[in-house]
């Protein structure tokens, strides 16, 4: 498979680009909701529009009413989300939760997928425990109780958790905290008693929850997939989410870079456009190179994932780490090259820096994933 978009994907890219530039624009969404101190942190109206565009259920199988598309396609939507800093539950709901639900029973899929596809419902995932992404260790416990389970523990960085109708929770049903096995995934509905959210606003104006489960009673039909066999599905979610986050990061990086390169062509100092200075030209050209490479490996990882390749896990980590490097560089160079104006809230470049920071931490940062690459490579 060649490493560029086929005709259908190119068409989707054009549609998504146009749609997001108009409907998902920074002034219309990010600033709009932020400046109104919106407790959701995103617009439900836009989520409805996502559904009308077919985005919400794009990864859902056609038999379940979705479009049955792959991660290259989801990446196209995410890159445009990144480029416009569009606050959206797309990555959590339509990529991460949708990947988990794919492995659910007929009942589970029938209960949760239609609401997602129609843009009526928003879902999230609860994986992290603590401030850093360490999915190898899961202490949050689900004990057998009657016909169901009783869930206890804490989860962090649950994106848009308080606004979510359902949260996919990775919990331990057997074994020790660091065991690979013994994990079960649960679809926990919003009204589950004993679940509480400490919802906080993050640096990028998105909302995330510290979620506490205090003996939350769950029916047996809340289980997604096999009891004790959740690690495999969790890994699939993580791969999908990491490749998705990488795609969004590519959008953040190229959005910041384009804005910066434009600025170099407008701003004058010492009687010259600052883009004429070689000191800035070389840094911009180096940045271009890094962003191009990051995009290439992101598409590669998405293709491997869609093809069910064994290399997908490694390349998902490579992509997440490489994008983190490139996007981190893009926003830092962006603010620096904008000079004073880059420090103002009025100007958008700083918003890119904030979004990048949050995205870096989501599902593992550059250090985590580079370490994972080393481990998977055997050193």
């Amino acid at each position, binding site marked *: 498979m*060649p*490493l*560029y978009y086929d005709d259908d994907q190119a068409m989707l890219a054009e549609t998504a680009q146009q749609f997001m530039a108009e409907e998902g624009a920074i002034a219309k969404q990010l600033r709009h909701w932020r400046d109104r101190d919106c407790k959701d942190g995103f617009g439900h109206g836009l989520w409805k529009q996502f559904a009308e565009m077919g985005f919400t259920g794009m990864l859902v199988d056609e038999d379940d009413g979705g479009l049955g598309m792959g991660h290259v396609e989801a990446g196209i939507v995410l890159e445009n989300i990144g480029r416009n800093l569009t606050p959206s539950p797309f990555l959590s709901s339509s990529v991460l939760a949708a990947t988990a639900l794919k492995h659910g029973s007929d009942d589970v899929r029938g209960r949760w997928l239609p609401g997602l596809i129609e843009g009526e419902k928003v879902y999230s995932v609860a994986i992290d425990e603590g401030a850093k992404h360490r999915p190898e260790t899961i202490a949050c416990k689900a004990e057998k109780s009657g016909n169901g389970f009783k869930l206890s523990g804490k989860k962090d960085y649950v994106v848009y958790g308080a606004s979510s109708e359902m949260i996919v929770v990775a919990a331990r049903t057997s074994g020790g905290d660091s065991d690979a096995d013994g994990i079960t995934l649960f679809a926990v509905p919003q009204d589950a008693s004993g679940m509480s959210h400490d919802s906080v606003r993050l640096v990028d104006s998105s909302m995330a929850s510290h979620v506490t489960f205090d003996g939350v009673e769950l029916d047996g039909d809340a289980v997604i997939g096999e009891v004790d066999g959740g690690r495999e599905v969790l890994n699939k979610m993580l791969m999908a989410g990491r490749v998705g986050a990488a795609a969004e990061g590519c959008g953040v990086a190229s959005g910041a870079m384009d804005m910066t*390169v434009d600025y*170099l*062509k407008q701003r004058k100092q010492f009687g*010259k*456009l600052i*883009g*004429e200075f*070689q000191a800035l*030209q*070389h840094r*911009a*050209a*180096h940045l*271009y*190179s*890094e962003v*191009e*490479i*990051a995009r*290439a*490996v992101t*598409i*590669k*990882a998405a293709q491997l994932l869609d093809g069910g390749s064994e290399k997908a896990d*490694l*390349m998902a980590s*490579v*992509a997440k*780490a*490489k994008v983190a*490097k490139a996007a981190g560089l893009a926003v830092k160079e962006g603010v620096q090259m904008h000079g004073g104006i880059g420090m103002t809230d009025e100007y958008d470049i700083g918003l890119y820096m904030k979004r990048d920071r949050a995205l870096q931490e989501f599902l593992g940062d*550059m250090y985590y*994933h*580079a*370490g994972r*690459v*080393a481990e998977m*490579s*055997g*050193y």
Partner: protein
Amino acid sequence: MSDLEAFRAETREWLEANCPPEMRKPVRDEADVYWGGRNATFKNDAQKAWFEVCRDKGYTVPEWPTEYGGAGLSPAEGKILRQEMSRMGARPPLSSFGIWMLGPALLHFGTEGQKQRFLNEIARGEIRWCQGYSEPGSGSDLVSMQTFGEDKGDHWVVNGQKIWTSYADEADWIFCLVRTDKQNKYQGITFMLFDMAGEGVSTKPIKLISGNSPFCETFFDDVKVPKSYGDDIPGYVGEINRGWDVAKYLLGHEREMISGAGGGDRTAAIGAALKRNAGELDAVLRAELAMFDVDALAYSAMGEKFLDELKVGKAHPAQPNMMKYAGTELNKRRHELMMAAGGSLALEWESDETSGGKPARNWLRTKANSIEGGTSEVMLNVISKRILDLPGA
């Protein structure tokens, strides 16, 4: 089974049957590379057999048309062949600047007569070419070159000096930039083709910091270069005084080649191999290796994307400059890390244990990667100007 799947199966079978086991081992030294040419010798029977069977199938230049010695493979088939060769570790049957550089220029700018003669000679490994571009006073600023060809009607008389001519002392012919109009900087250069055995051509190897001498100084002292070698075979490529167009086109190919876009060792991850050699890695070195491997694996995806896009005309025309920049900087980093992991053993300059100081010599060699074929700084200039469209660049 699709046509391509059938081709893959067929190719795999053919390679299994025809590639000798010795030719599936990594290249160890210069003698393992077969360059062809009038005075070429084979290191062993396996090298000879592998070269000949590939030559006869058109696999020295698989994507060139069959009438010019290739196998006429489509880009997709060519990619499959490369993948299958790389899978079994098969060495290239023939390496040459004719294949990498002059060939693409002739395919693009050559006359039918030139293609018939020169491309077939290259494909069959009969003539070994070298490139005459840089001059002592014209490195990054190549277009300022002074080597001059005086027009004598049916021939030129060439005087001047080239430098960094790769393997000029072993080459049969040279493709050479020669100034033919002193008044016109860009449109005053002709891309000439001539025999290195001719009178007035001399070469002098340059000893590098690696101790090796892959490059020469090449001197032209009243060298007679014919304007024609026969019917429809001009002694120059493209038009007279328009050699700069050919040179620029070729620089693109050179940059792709140096960038290692085609994959192979230069884009591979190294962490695991270094741990095997070095034993326990220092924590910070391990971290550096991990970051390197991220960059290397990402770059290999970039190489694949770049080649895929190139084949269908989707790549930005200046993208080879980006590939060259990123690829060579990566390769320098790779060898720094290999030296660090190698410790004092990697310092040995002549020992058998290091195959004659290979780690150190290779490390030093890589320092030229970001100089030859356009420095990293020139690559960044080109990206600024042609891709980012920055002012005054």
